């Protein structure tokens, strides 16, 4: 076989069209013919080179694929399941925490106070409003006991609307339970008019006065009355023998305001007058009306 024929056999070899007999002949010749072996190696490298070029094309294509977040579907779905499971677990934990920390029942709170008031509100759990400070502000002079009983409603938490309703309800009950003097300025009015305004809202009275009274001779004019007040003692200067008099003493939080009713006239007595001071008539009509109503009740 000529050399050219061997070159054709090499070509057939790489085409895959060579028959077994020719293949054996070629392989034998390659072992003994260095030039033929060189040609065979060259052709082998060329064919591999062609394959490499194609491989490089495919590998470039694959390298351009974004594999972030990809992977096997099994792993991907596993991550999804894990995420979903964790989410459910977190939601369940939050719910459980919230549920177990929501009071199912609250023991009755026994509050002893000076008014006897029994308030059974079984359908509302108004813990915050029940302990409001202003509910317990009351007349120190009122010797009463208050028993307030709250029972927590078993079940669901309150909505904002419910709480607002409860607040409103509590506010309605409050004045019925106690008479309060929340305005500290009540007993330091700058005028009768101001005083009237405050008294209109909340007033309580006590005719039982601990104030000691001492009558003294008139200071100047016989018809003019004077007074001074210190150390819980009232000194009245004037002629008070014609008719009975009455002292109204109003208390709030340790403070008190005195009024003198004498001969159909009401006078205001201020507690810090250590010097002899003329008794001044209360001129505010509304205040006079209120005070007369109190006097007539007795």
């Amino acid at each position, binding site marked *: 076989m000529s050399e050219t024929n061997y070159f054709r056999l090499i070509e057939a070899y790489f085409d895959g069209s060579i028959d077994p007999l020719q293949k054996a002949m070629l392989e034998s010749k390659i072992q003994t013919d260095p030039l033929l072996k060189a040609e065979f190696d060259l052709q082998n490298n060329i064919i591999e080179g*062609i394959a490499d070029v194609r491989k490089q094309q*495919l590998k470039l294509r694959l390298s351009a*694929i974004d594999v972030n977040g990809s*992977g096997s579907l099994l*792993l991907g779905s596993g991550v999804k399941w894990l995420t979903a499971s964790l989410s459910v677990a977190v939601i369940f934990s939050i719910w459980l925490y919230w549920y177990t920390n929501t009071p199912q029942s609250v023991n009755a709170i026994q509050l002893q106070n000076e008014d006897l008031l029994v308030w059974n509100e079984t359908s509302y759990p108004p813990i915050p409003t029940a302990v409001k400070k202003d509910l317990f502000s009351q007349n120190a002079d009122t010797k009463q006991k208050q028993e307030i009983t709250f029972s927590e409603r078993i079940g669901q938490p309150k909505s904002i609307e419910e709480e607002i309703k409860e607040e409103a309800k509590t506010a309605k009950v409050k004045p019925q339970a106690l008479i309060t003097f929340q305005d500290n300025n009540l007993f330091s009015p700058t005028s009768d008019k101001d005083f009237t305004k405050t008294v209109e809202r909340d007033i309580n009275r006590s005719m039982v006065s601990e104030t000691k009274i001492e009558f003294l001779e008139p200071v100047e004019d016989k018809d003019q009355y004077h007074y001074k007040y210190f150390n819980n003692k009232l000194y009245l200067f004037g002629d008070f023998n014609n008719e009975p008099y009455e002292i109204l003493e109003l208390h709030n939080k340790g403070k008190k305001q005195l009024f003198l009713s004498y001969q159909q006239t009401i006078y205001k007595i201020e507690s810090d007058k250590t010097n002899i001071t003329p008794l001044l008539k209360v001129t505010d009509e509304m205040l006079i009306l209120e005070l007369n109503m109190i006097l007539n009740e007795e």
Partner: protein
Amino acid sequence: MRQSDADIILQIKAGKESALDYLYKKNYRMMVSMILRNNGSEQEAKDIFQDALIVFWQKAKSEDFKLSSKISTYLFSVCQNLWRKELDRKRKFEESDKEDSEENTFEQQEMIKIIHQCINELGESCKQILTYHYFDGMSMDKIAEKMGLANSDTAKTKRYKCKKRLDELIRSRYTASDFLD
């Protein structure tokens, strides 16, 4: 969208490279993890997995190919074998005379470099027909169909001319004695 193994094989046989993209994304993490666990770097793992996919591409295109397992299992086995070979190659390289090895590797690399340059100097249609024939193992009928040529004889003639041209280019760069040294 999830595709069945049978669909993927059909796509590969039709020469659709997008089937490779799908397999790459789907199996990337599993294959790379296996190589990373066996002392491989991420770049090595990528190379091995890409080579495995190309092996699968070539196998799946042959007419007598039959898939006896899931594609992912097949790919995993190919990756394992390729990585084992790579580890062997590394071990042998370390054990052998490094100077001789480096010299041989250098000559081989030079020759491959020239061959690649010459292939890239061919026209696109020549490159295509040669890769279809020598890499993908396509028949002349299929190449003619894919490249829009008149018939298989036209494809055969074109393939012969392109190969002859490539040989001439390479020979012009290197004489036979160069390769024999």
